[in-house]
């Protein structure tokens, strides 16, 4: 089973943005920051994932999950949406978080979950 799922609309946006940036993959991570403790990071990469990477593939693009973020993202759904017409971004429905910032960009994680 995949660590995360990605909605069709999010894949469409991933294809659009990777093509615009001449990239093949996007690496998703989680790092400490923001008013609620953590935030998601997105890093564009020019290469395909390695065999031992955790990744999802659609068409010719890859979403790679940083190994240190695996436990934090387990069971999440990545979607593309907005709080309103004025702000659209990638967001996660993440079952592991206990609270999040109003804009959902920063969040806290259930203390039973660690990065390794």
């Amino acid at each position, binding site marked *: 089973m995949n660590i995360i799922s990605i909605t069709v609309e999010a894949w469409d946006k991933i294809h659009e943005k990777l093509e615009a940036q001449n990239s093949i993959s996007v690496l998703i991570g989680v790092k400490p920051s923001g008013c609620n403790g953590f935030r998601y990071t997105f890093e564009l990469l020019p290469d395909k994932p390695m065999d031992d990477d955790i990744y999802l593939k659609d068409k010719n693009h890859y979403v790679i999950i940083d190994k240190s973020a695996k436990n934090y993202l387990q069971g999440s759904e990545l979607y593309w949406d907005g709080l309103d017409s*004025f702000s659209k971004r990638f967001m996660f429905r993440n079952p592991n978080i206990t609270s999040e910032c109003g804009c959902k960009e*920063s969040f806290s994680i259930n203390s039973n979950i660690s990065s390794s």
Partner: protein
Amino acid sequence: MTNKKIIESDCGNVTILAGDDIPNKIFIDDAAKNQIEKLCKDEGDNSFLRIAVMGGGCSGFQYLFGFDNELDDNDIINDWGSGRVVVDNISMQFIKGSTLHFLNDFNGEYFQIENSLAKSQCGCGNSFSMDM
């Protein structure tokens, strides 16, 4: 010396520390103008972008964005011919001198207000705090 300024509003008097030297206007970058024109055209009905500031969010104040097509007496209008941004006079006291950006990077496409009056802001920039 601090220039305290008291403004009467529907919800009582608002005291603001900002100097009188900042003109009652905001700046809008080209990407934001393009996006506002596009959104308002889709919205129709001669709509314009209204920005307001309200109490709320994790940092004390937050920006509200909305479409509107009716002006009030205390509105300050920023019109560049093919688009308009309207801010009411009270909200303007919290954002005057700011620049409205539209950012399009990998993780999002969103408006952001670069506000020199804000003391700190939330991660996404939508909520901010001020010296009062």
